[in-house]
């Protein structure tokens, strides 16, 4: 063999070695996405082909199998009854529809009630009488109904002890009506907060989705002053947050604003007497990430130092809640902006530090309706979106836990 051939062979061996190493290096670059599962994060828009239906999502719960059920009020343009009927939809952990069911109960409000494997919601009959309707979460069939002896239900809240607290409006006495029921839906205590003016028409328009959507809500607090509930409702001419004693449901304190044109849009107890609030007044939205609130006294919302949120929509609905992670607890405020974005403010639980702002932009208008912490320590957001800019439809957005864990 000539020297030239031997040199060529050597060169070829070197180059084969080079190519092998190059290939090995390149193959090592491949991104392994096997750990990302469809249920970790998804977005679904639940469309209905009937253009004359408008869906107003209300509440979302996660089921033990990882799937979800959400409730929506459905307004039909052609219906004889002006109030929206009720729709429940069960979806898989990755958002695909398992079943959907419709009910004649009107103007469903509030959080879904999930206890001991049973699902319930609060709605009213055509006579404005409120009921709890219990359904089988496996099929959506109705198991039972329980009269709540309260009219015009505006919000229902299931507390940590399993009691049901319902806010209604009494069109006879012109009062906000708060009732507490045990887990068997038996009345435990009731109280009426006089509004001193007739707001029935506004309440009707709120319920039938033709007027302003008022931020009625109920939550619970516990601190050294006692434990009880905070209820955002009409009281003494104004829309205000009233603190109620947990046993007697009597008002102990409140935060008020100007009449019913301004108000508090969300409240969360952070710790002790520290609360986080959002509000709207004078055409703007504001956030008070952490403020000391005395639940035993009455105060004006404007006396609390607030930061403006100019980007939010007019009188923006805001959902406040907590997120417990393996590292830290956080306070989340969810809302929507004028440029069709869904916005999540992530605050530290113990103070007013804004840790992160998460933005999800959409082509059409969105409105946040509810959110929950999921079993994997992410969150699931229920919102409505105007599909094609025209048709209001439910939207579920599941966000992964790593979004909320601060980078080291």
């Amino acid at each position: 063999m000539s020297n030239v051939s031997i040199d060529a062979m050597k060169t070829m061996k070197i180059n084969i070695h080079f190519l092998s190493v190059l290939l090995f290096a390149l193959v090592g670059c491949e991104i392994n996405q096997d750990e990302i599962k469809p249920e970790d994060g998804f977005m679904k828009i639940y469309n209905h082909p009937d253009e004359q239906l408008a869906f107003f999502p209300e509440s979302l719960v996660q089921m033990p199998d990882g799937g979800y059920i959400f409730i929506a009020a459905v307004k039909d343009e052609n219906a004889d009854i002006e109030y929206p009927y009720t729709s429940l939809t069960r979806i898989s952990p990755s958002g695909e529809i398992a079943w959907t069911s419709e009910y004649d109960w009107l103007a469903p409000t509030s959080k879904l009630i999930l206890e001991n494997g049973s699902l319930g919601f609060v709605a009213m009959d055509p006579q404005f009488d409120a009921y709890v309707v219990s359904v089988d979460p496996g099929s959506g069939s109705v198991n039972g109904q329980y009269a709540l002896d309260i009219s015009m239900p505006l919000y229902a809240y299931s507390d940590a002890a399993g009691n049901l607290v319902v806010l209604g409006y009494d069109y006879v006495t012109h009062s906000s009506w708060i009732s507490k029921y045990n887990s068997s839906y038996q009345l435990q205590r009731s109280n009426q907060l006089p509004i001193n003016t007739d707001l029935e028409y506004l309440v009707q328009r709120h319920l039938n989705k033709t007027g302003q959507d008022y931020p009625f809500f109920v939550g619970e607090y516990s601190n050294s002053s006692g434990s009880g509930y905070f209820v955002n409702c009409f009281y003494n001419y104004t829309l205000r947050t009233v603190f109620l004693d947990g046993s007697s449901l009597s008002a102990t304190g409140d935060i008020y604003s100007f009449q019913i044109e301004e108000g508090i849009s969300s409240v969360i107890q952070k710790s002790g007497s520290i609360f986080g609030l959002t509000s709207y007044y004078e055409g703007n939205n504001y956030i008070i990430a952490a403020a000391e609130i005395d639940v035993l006294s009455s105060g004006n919302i404007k006396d609390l130092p607030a930061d403006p949120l100019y980007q939010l929509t007019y009188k923006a609905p805001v959902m406040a809640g907590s997120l417990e992670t393996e590292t830290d607890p956080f306070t989340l405020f969810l809302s929507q902006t004028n440029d069709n974005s869904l916005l999540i403010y992530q605050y530290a639980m113990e103070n007013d530090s804004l840790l992160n702002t998460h933005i999800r932009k959409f082509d059409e208008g969105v409105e946040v309706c509810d959110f929950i912490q999921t079993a994997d320590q992410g969150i699931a957001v229920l919102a409505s979106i105007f599909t094609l800019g025209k048709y209001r439809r439910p939207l579920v957005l599941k966000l992964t836990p790593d979004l909320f864990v601060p980078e080291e």
Partner: protein
Amino acid sequence: MRKKAIILSILLALVMDQAAHAQEPGFLNQLRIGFGGGVNFAQIVDLEPYSIYEDLSGASYTNDYSDIFQNLGSQYFVQIEWFYKFFVVVLKPGTYTYRFSKHSEILFNNETVEEEIPYLLRYFSVPLEVRYNLDLQRFRPYAGGSVAYSHLLPSLDASNETFIRSKFTAGAVAGTYIDLRYIILDLNAGYRFGLHNITSKADRFETGSGETYAQDDIMLNGLQINLSILFSLQKQKQYSNVECFY
């Protein structure tokens, strides 16, 4: 980041290694360098469909992709060849652009809204081909296999973010060299098989760029037709009747 740095270091070391070997006698004589370009036709394989829309009335939404010969793309590359006897090892680093579109429908009672989402994926790709060629004097037909690593280049197209950056392909090539003495033409066709799903599972859903959709898990295959011009660094072969003296 760390992994990229390691890979870049390895590549740099190998390039320096090759540069050192390039000084060895005989290496340059077996090297051909040139450039080329061509067209490609992307073929999308839908591994698993996803839809951002679910229908509350029970209807289902489907997606489909434009046919292969509607997806005309292009590529431009530098071609570096090293040959030994009947084997040729070819590197063709360059810009490879793929086009295709996705069609979907949103159903309503009185209207069906059709969405067509165009995609333009521009990769910096480094294909490596090994060819076996026959020496038929002026024409040297060949066949071989290829592997390629491609990196998706950034673009202003928001849908670009729904794809992962790297793409691996394997393929088969066939063609012929046409020896024109001072230059060599390389006319070839190849089919590249995508080796993995290129959709970013974490960024599948796109909502704020004028289109609202969920990206399916897809593989990007493609038919390529290329023409290259190569310059040999060795003495030219003699095929004509006119004698040349060097």
